[in-house]
């Protein structure tokens, strides 16, 4: 599936059955991001399929 990573502004192709698995593959600490599936915020145990549009949002304080 196509995954857009907000922090880098890049889109990557990854195969993963759940949000948890996706973050593990991308080596991203779940505490530091929010995952949006097809426009909706989802939890780490949410299931993913090849057709899903995924966005990984960074949890960062601006100041």
């Amino acid at each position, binding site marked *: 599936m196509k995954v857009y990573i*907000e922090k880098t502004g890049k889109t990557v192709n990854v195969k993963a059955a759940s949000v948890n698995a996706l973050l593990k593959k991308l080596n991203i*600490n779940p505490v530091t991001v929010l995952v949006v599936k097809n426009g*909706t*915020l989802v*939890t780490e145990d949410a299931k993913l399929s090849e057709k899903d549009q995924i966005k990984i949002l*960074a949890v*960062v304080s*601006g100041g």
Partner: protein
Amino acid sequence: MTCKNGSKEPVFVLTSGEKLCKNCFNLYFERKARKCIRQHELIGKKERIAVALSGGKDSSVLLTLLASITRQMKNVELFAILIDEGIKGYRPFTKKDAEKLCKKLKVKLYVYSFKKELGYSLDEMLKKLKKGPCTVCGTFRRYLLNKKARELKADKIAFGHNADDEAQSIVMNLFRSNNDAAARLGVINGLKKDARFIRRIKPLYFLLEKEVTAYAFLNGISGKFVECPYAGAAYRGEVRIMLNDFENKHPGTKTGILSAFLETLPLLKEKFMKEGDIGFCRKCREPTSAEECMACRLLEQLKKK
């Protein structure tokens, strides 16, 4: 608090493991902020509150919440102050978001820039000074916020600092054995009997950064993601990564740090902060614990370069 509507998809899992749908999460978040304001008496019945607005998600969430809360308080006035440090490729974006939000919420926004008020933008300052960007930026931001809030007759300044920010500050002060600075942390700081120092309040103190980001996303508050170009260079950045690793392995680490700190804070305040302790800078008359405030010392260095 439990999410009673089982048919709704959960959008967030709390540190406790509890899963919440959008409505329950919003309720949880707003209640926690309101409880913090009530329990720590952050807002009085007749006060002018200045919100330190950057246009980032934390201060935007704070302004949105406070606008909603104070709407029911007849004698509380709310306005926002934005300090434009002059960081190319960063502040112009967040400034636009801040202006849009204030217009939407019908909150008066005052904008002051480093360049106009101090003679140099932050980018210009950092080319001349051999200091960490956050030290220079923080010093002048605090200086201008206090000065301008006082001139605008604010009783308090509200900051969007969240639980992550505070846990990082606590650990940084601990690692550097800086108890004097730690005594100035907490949900509310400043002393009551000081007309020149405007007290600082942090209504989002007990909410995690991830919770604030989720609230911003779910309620369409934050604009496009923009990170301060100087963020990675800071010591704080290293502490943030360390605490996030710990939080992932041991959920509850950050709130644990806050709880333990808040128990010892009265002792720190007793030792390091006493009524009448705040002096005034001999140059600018702004509050400081030294003879000359850090802002004046840095400005002096800038003039010499």
